[in-house]
């Protein structure tokens, strides 16, 4: 059986630290034996005690320190224990790391990745369950990625650092304990491949990758949920749904995402975030601009309710995006025209 996402991430970090002696990893409680709140950093500090450091509780300061390492020509990865706390590092990300790549009148490489354990469904409550991607969409110089069960994290992280631009990597907490997909196989019905010039977009299809009634685009955190919805749609509703999961959310890789959407003429974008200024709305705008005329229906977005995320599981479910919400959206889009 394929490795779990948390193992893939952990191995990716091992490999990156081994490959690049200039890479430092910082975060709260990341050293052994604890190895991070979600155990992503296990074993790293034992091998590289000087380059893997537990820090005080200082999210802004840690990202600043990492920015300094990057400014000095090194690479840095920061773990924010819960992505909700990246709010405390907003200034360092917006006004230092991202701006420094350009505001001195020339390109300055800033090799910095901020890892953000993200999302709900674990009963951690309103300040430990958010999906803050949208707050960072469209910051010049900053890229956004999301972990998925289709994308090898060593490739993703190495690619992010290689751009010389800072980036955030969102990691849906529910994903950690699930398994990576491997060898192009999702299950007995669905196959996947990685498409686009950087093999950045995972495409999950049944039978024929060139044919679908609807395209469902989701970030990595919703990938498994999207696949299970696609399966149900196929089996219960006879709707062929192709799922696209980009690793890089921003900048949007429109050239790779648009052709399948154009072919189907119908698209649903689902995110766990609340609505308003989201990555999905931005993608919708690109689709409307560029595929006007080819679309059979407006882009349909699926979000969590406009609400704080309650702690109790039975309440959390009433707020966060459920499979049924995505299912319904696809059905409506497909039957709507």
């Amino acid at each position, binding site marked *: 059986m394929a490795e779990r996402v948390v193992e893939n991430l952990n191995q990716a970090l091992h490999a990156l630290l081994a490959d690049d002696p200039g890479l430092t990893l910082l975060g709260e409680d990341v050293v052994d034996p604890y190895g991070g709140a979600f155990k992503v950093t296990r074993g790293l500090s034992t091998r590289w005690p000087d380059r893997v450091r537990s820090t005080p*509780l200082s999210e802004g300061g840690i990202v600043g320190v990492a920015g300094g390492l990057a400014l000095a020509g090194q690479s840095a990865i920061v773990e924010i224990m819960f992505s909700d706390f990246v709010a405390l590092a907003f200034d360092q990300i917006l006004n230092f790391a991202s701006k420094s790549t350009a505001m001195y009148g020339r390109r300055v490489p800033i090799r910095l990745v901020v890892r953000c354990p993200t999302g709900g469904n674990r009963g951690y409550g309103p300040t*430990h369950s958010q999906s803050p991607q949208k707050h960072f969409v469209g910051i010049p110089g900053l890229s956004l990625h999301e972990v998925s069960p289709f994308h090898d994290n060593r490739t993703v992280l190495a690619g992010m650092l290689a751009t010389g631009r800072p980036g955030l990597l969102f990691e849906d907490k529910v994903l950690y304990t699930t398994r990576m997909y491997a060898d192009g196989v999702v299950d007995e019905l669905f196959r996947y491949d990685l498409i686009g010039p950087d093999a950045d977009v995972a495409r999950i299809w049944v039978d024929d990758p060139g044919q679908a009634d609807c395209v469902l685009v989701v970030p990595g955190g919703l990938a498994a949920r999207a696949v299970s919805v696609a399966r149900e749609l196929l089996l219960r509703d006879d709707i062929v749904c192709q799922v696209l999961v980009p690793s890089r959310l921003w900048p949007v890789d429109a050239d790779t995402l648009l052709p399948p959407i154009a072919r189907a003429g119908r698209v649903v974008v689902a995110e766990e975030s609340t609505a308003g200024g989201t990555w999905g709305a931005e993608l919708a705008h690109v689709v409307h601009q560029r595929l006007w005329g080819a679309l059979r229906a407006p882009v349909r977005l699926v979000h969590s309710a406009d609400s704080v995320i309650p702690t109790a599981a*039975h309440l959390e479910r009433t707020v966060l995006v459920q499979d049924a919400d995505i299912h319904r959206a696809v059905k409506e889009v497909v039957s709507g025209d």
Partner: protein
Amino acid sequence: MTATRTEAPPTAPTRLADVDLDLLLLIRHFELSLLDMFGRGELHGTTHTCLGQEYVPVALRPLLTDGDFVFSNHRGHGHYLARFDDPHGLLAEVMGREGAVCHGVGGSQHILRDRYLSTGVQGESAPVAAGVALHLKRAEPGRLALVYLGDGTWGEGAVYEALNMAALWGLPLLLVVENNGIAQSTPTTAQLAGSIGGRARAFGVDHLRVTSTDTAVVRSALGPVLRRVRERCTPYVVELLTHRVGPHSKGDDNRRPDELAYAKAHDWYARYAEAYPEQFTAHDERQRAYVAQVVREVTGRPASRWAEADRG
């Protein structure tokens, strides 16, 4: 100015009034039950117990009035139970059952009731409490805002922004630092340079360190501090050297055996049991049984409801 109350553990702890002992034991058994329930998979999410630190809010209880604001943190069950005689409401909140203080929306870490508030972002409450203290100073002199915070939380810049404004503006803000020598998995020595006393003094704020874990001793050390905060309308930092006997949250404790033994050796519970076996055993039994009954009762309740009108 820092003063230190360095009572070395006396041969015997002070004998407590029943009401204090009951409260200590209520908190102890409440927390133990939570860990049990987590262990049995009956609880969802996360929680942070205050095992070993129960005496802090118990010592403070009679020193506070309903008009004071209390800002708790992630490790807040003891703070809540010392303020409200309401284990049912708190457990229902943690379990998401009917009668939950916050309808199960906040859970263990996010509670608001009257003038008591906790939230999950470390350090964030310090400036908020300073704002509340500014209001109290102007509108309700003699009242104060108390913030509980851990040693690790002194890593956050927000704490210093709050201290600075509180000192400049003479605000009745009391920071109660539960210095348990660790933040999640990181020892204080690895996350806090200098000292908490120094950090208070740096802002011209008085500081008192209390090493005793004896409820009565702590209370008598803190009495004059709270009086001073009220009367002079001035911030104050109280640092309690305390001991986290349990894990950080559910089962995450990687401390070495000697570190755990050190914490255990300072636990008021065993020491009190030994000193006053008779009083202890009776009350311990009673509180254990009471909590067991609370657990049974709340477990039997239906899920909490969150009305549309309450959704903000």
